[in-house]
C-alpha cells in the first residue's frame, strides 16, 4: 500500500514538474528584446568578418557601420563619413569622417581604421567578395585623423552608392585575426555571444552615435528549415522573419498579430546562354530566345502572383535611379522570324541545365519551356545535382539557370556583363558595351549619366545572352509588436530605431 502511495506521489510530482518546465521554456515576447529568425545560410561556416564570403547577415549590419548608408529612396546618406567630394574626372574622392565615434572596446574611430578596412576589402590576396564592388579603389590614404582620400583606377560617379554596400563596413585596425568570432564595431549593437548555428545575442550600444537604440537586446536564432522558422513566429517564439516564401504568407493573415511587408528587391533569376557555343553565338538566336516568352506569366508562375516585377533583361532593379523599363512584350512571330533568318525555319532544340540548389531555379526553366513552345523553341530540361551545380554546370554548360542578389547598377553591370569580369557567366565579349560602361560611370552630370545607363540596358536587350525575366519581391513578416522596420530592403533598415512593445 505504501509503495503505491509513493508511486502516486512520484507520478504527480513528475507531471507537475514537466508542466512547469514546459511553461518556463515557452518564451514569449519580452519588451525591448527582438528575436530574429535567421536561416543557416552557410551551415556553420558563418563569420562576423564582413569581408569574408561567409559573412553572417544581417548580424554584421547591427555591429558595424558603413562610411555611407542609404535612405529609403536609396540615396546615399552620411553614416561614419559626414561628407564626400570628388575631383573633376571622378577618380579621386575625399571623405570627411564623423568625429568622436568610439568602437565597442572604447577606442576611437579614425582615418587609420578606414585605411585598414578598405585595404582589406580590396586586397587581391584575400580576394574579398567586396572587391567585386569596390575594386575600382586603387589606393586609400589618411590625410589627417578624420579625412581620407580614395584614388580610383577609373572615374566612378556612383562611388557613394558602392560604398553603401552592406558589407563595406568599418572594422578596427589589425582586427583580422579576431573579428570573425569576437567582432568590435561602432554599430548600434555589441556582440555578447556569437553562435551561428544556435542563438547569437547582441546588446545595445548605449553610446551609439545615432542615438541609444530602442531595444536592449537582439537575439538571432538560427533555423535550418524555413518551415520551422515560420512555426516559431506563429507560436510567438520569434518576432521577425526576414523573408518567407510569398506562397506561404497566408498563414500570417491575422493582421492583429502579424505585420506582412512586401519589399521590391534587386534579386533576380536568369537563363544564361554561352555565346562561345553554337547556336548562341548568333545574336538573332539569342534575341529570339529572349523575346519568345511572356515575362509576366513566368514571374507569376515561378514566384506567385505579385511575387516579382518584370525585367526586360536588365539587371538594374526597380528602385535603382538608372532602371530601364522596356518594353519587352512576348513576340512569338518576331522570334520565329529571327530563328528562320538565323537558319532555323523549323524551330530549334536546346538543352537548359538547372538544379534545386536554390529556390525558383527549376520552376523558372519549366515556365520558360512552356512559354517558348509557340515560337518553335523546344527546351529539354537537364537536372544537375545541387552540390555540383555552381562548380560543374554554371558558366560551363551551354545554357543554365542563374541567380544573383541585389546590386546597384554600376556594380551589377560591371560584375556580370563586362567582357573581362571574372563571373561573366555567358563569356560574352562586347567591346562596345565595355566602352559604354566606362563612359557612363565617368559622367558627372546625373541626368546625362542616367541616359547613358538606359542606353546600356537597351543595348543589352538587343545583344545580351542573359534572359532575365524578373526581379523578386520579398515578403517579410513580423509580430505586430515590432515597430520601426520600414518596408525596404534590410540593408537600409536602421536597427537602432526598432522597438518591441
Amino acid at each position: 500500500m505504501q509503495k503505491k502511495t509513493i508511486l502516486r506521489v512520484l507520478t504527480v510530482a513528475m507531471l507537475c514538474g514537466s508542466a512547469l518546465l514546459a511553461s518556463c521554456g515557452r518564451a514569449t515576447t519580452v519588451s525591448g528584446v527582438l528575436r530574429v529568425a535567421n536561416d543557416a545560410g552557410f551551415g556553420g561556416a558563418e563569420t562576423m568578418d564582413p569581408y569574408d564570403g561567409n559573412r553572417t547577415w544581417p548580424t554584421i549590419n547591427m555591429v558595424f557601420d558603413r562610411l555611407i548608408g542609404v535612405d529609403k529612396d536609396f540615396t546615399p546618406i552620411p553614416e561614419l563619413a559626414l561628407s564626400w567630394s570628388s575631383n573633376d574626372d571622378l577618380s579621386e574622392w575625399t571623405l570627411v569622417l564623423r568625429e568622436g565615434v568610439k568602437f565597442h572596446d572604447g577606442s576611437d574611430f579614425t582615418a587609420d581604421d578606414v585605411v585598414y578596412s578598405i585595404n582589406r576589402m580590396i586586397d587581391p590576396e584575400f580576394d574579398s567578395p567586396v572587391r567585386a564592388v569596390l575594386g575600382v579603389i586603387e589606393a586609400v590614404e589618411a590625410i589627417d585623423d578624420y579625412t581620407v582620400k580614395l584614388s580610383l583606377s577609373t572615374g566612378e560617379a556612383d562611388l557613394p552608392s558602392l560604398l553603401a554596400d552592406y558589407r563595406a563596413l568599418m572594422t578596427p585596425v589589425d582586427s583580422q585575426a579576431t573579428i570573425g568570432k569576437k567582432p568590435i564595431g561602432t554599430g548600434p549593437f555589441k556582440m555578447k555571444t556569437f553562435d551561428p548555428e544556435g542563438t547569437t545575442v547582441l546588446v545595445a550600444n548605449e553610446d551609439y552615435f545615432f542615438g541609444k537604440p530602442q531595444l536592449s537586446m537582439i537575439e538571432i536564432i538560427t533555423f535550418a528549415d524555413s518551415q520551422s522558422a515560420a512555426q516559431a513566429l506563429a507560436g510567438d517564439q520569434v518576432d521577425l522573419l526576414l523573408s518567407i516564401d510569398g506562397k506561404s504568407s497566408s498563414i500570417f493573415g491575422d493582421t492583429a498579430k502579424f505585420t506582412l511587408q512586401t519589399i521590391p528587391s534587386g534579386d533576380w533569376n536568369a537563363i544564361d546562354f554561352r555565346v562561345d557555343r553554337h547556336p548562341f553565338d548568333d545574336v538573332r538566336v539569342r534575341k529570339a530566345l529572349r523575346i519568345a516568352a511572356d515575362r509576366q506569366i513566368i514571374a507569376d508562375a515561378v514566384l506567385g502572383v505579385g511575387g516579382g516585377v518584370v525585367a526586360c533583361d536588365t539587371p538594374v532593379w526597380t528602385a535603382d535611379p538608372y532602371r530601364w523599363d522596356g518594353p519587352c512584350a512576348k513576340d512569338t512571330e518576331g522570334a520565329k522570324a529571327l530563328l528562320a533568318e538565323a537558319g532555323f525555319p523549323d524551330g530549334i532544340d536546346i538543352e537548359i541545365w538547372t538544379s534545386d540548389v536554390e529556390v525558383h531555379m527549376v520552376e523558372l526553366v519549366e515556365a520558360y519551356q512552356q512559354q517558348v513552345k509557340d515560337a518553335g523553341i523546344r527546351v529539354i530540361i537537364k537536372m544537375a545535382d545541387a552540390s555540383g551545380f555552381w562548380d560543374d554546370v554554371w558558366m560551363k554548360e551551354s545554357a543554365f539557370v542563374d541567380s544573383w542578389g541585389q546590386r546597384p547598377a554600376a556594380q551589377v553591370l560591371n560584375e556580370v556583363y563586362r567582357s573581362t569580369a571574372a563571373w561573366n557567366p555567358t563569356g560574352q565579349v562586347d567591346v562596345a558595351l565595355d566602352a559604354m560602361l566606362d563612359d557612363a560611370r565617368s559622367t558627372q552630370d546625373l541626368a546625362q549619366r542616367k541616359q547613358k545607363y538606359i542606353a546600356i540596358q537597351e543595348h543589352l536587350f538587343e545583344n545580351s545572352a542573359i534572359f532575365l525575366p524578373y526581379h523578386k519581391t520579398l515578403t517579410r513578416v513580423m509580430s505586430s509588436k515590432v515597430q520601426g522596420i520600414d518596408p525596404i530592403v534590410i540593408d537600409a533598415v536602421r536597427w537602432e530605431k526598432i522597438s518591441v512593445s
Partner: protein
Amino acid sequence: MLFTLGAFVSLAVLSFLGIDALPGDGCTALLGRFGTPAKVAECREEHQLTDPVIVRLGNWANDVVHGDLGYSIKRDEQVAQIVLPRIRNTAMLAVVAALMAFPSAIVAGLLIGRYPQSRIGRAINTLGVVAMTLPEFVIATILWLVFSIWIPIFPGVTVVPSNATVVELLPHIWMPALTLAAVVFAHSMRTMKAGVTTIQLMPFVESARLRGTKERVTLLRHILPAALPPVVNTIAVDAAWLLTGTFVTEAVFNYRGLGRLAIDAISDRDTAVILPIVLFGLGVYLTMSLIADMVVRLLDPRLKQHRS
C-alpha cells in the same frame, strides 16, 4: 568481436570512399559559388585534400585511434565539439520518446489482445495504426497545431543552441518526442497484441485458467512473459531508429540532433563529421540487437536450458 570490428572498419572505408566519389569536397563547399580555382587550390593544400584518398583515410584512422576525431573544414571547429553535444541531444530525445512509447505500447497491446471487443482498445489500435502510416511531418504538424497553437502548453520549435544545458533543452523535447513516440508506438503495440491473441488460446493458458488462477495473474504471469520476446526485438529496432533516423522530426521542430547534422555534413562533404555519425549509427544497431538477444534469453526459459 572480430565481426564487429570488421563491420566498423568496412563501414568507415566505404563511407570515406563514398564521400570522396561525390562531386566537390570540403573546400568547394566552404568557398561556395564564388570560390576561385586559386583559392580552392590553396584551401585543399592547407587541409591536405590533395593527398590520395588512401593516405587521407590512413591519417584519419591514425588520429581516431589516438583519440582525435579530426577537424571540420566547413565549421572551423574540432569534430568532437560538434558531434558530442548532438549525440547527447539525440540520445535525450530518444530516451524520452522511448519512455513515452514502449511501456504504454506493451500495456495497450496486452489489454487489446486480451479484450479485443473493447471500444477504447479499438480506438487506440486505430489511432496507433493511423500514426504509424502517416508521414512524420504530418504528425508533427498536427501535434504542433494542437499543443503549441490551439492549446499552447509546449514550445513549438527548439530555440536553444545545441550545447544548451539539459534543463534549458528539456521544455523543447516534448513535441518531437511525442511525434516520434506516435510513429513507433503501433509497431510494438501490434506485435504485442498479435502475440497475446495467439498465446491466450494455447494449452498452458487454458490449463492455468482451469486451475482457477485469477485472470490478472494469468495475464501477467503466463501470457505477458510468453508474448514479450518478439516485442523486445521490435523495440530494439525502433529504439535504434530513434537514435539514428529522426532527421525529419528534428528538422520540423528545429531540434539540434544528429540527423540534421548528418544531412548538412554530407552536403558539405565534411568527411570528418560524417564518419563518427555513421559509425555511431552502426554501434547503435549492433548494441541494440545485442541487448535484445540478452533480454529475450532472460525472458525465455527454453533458451536458458538449451545453453546448459
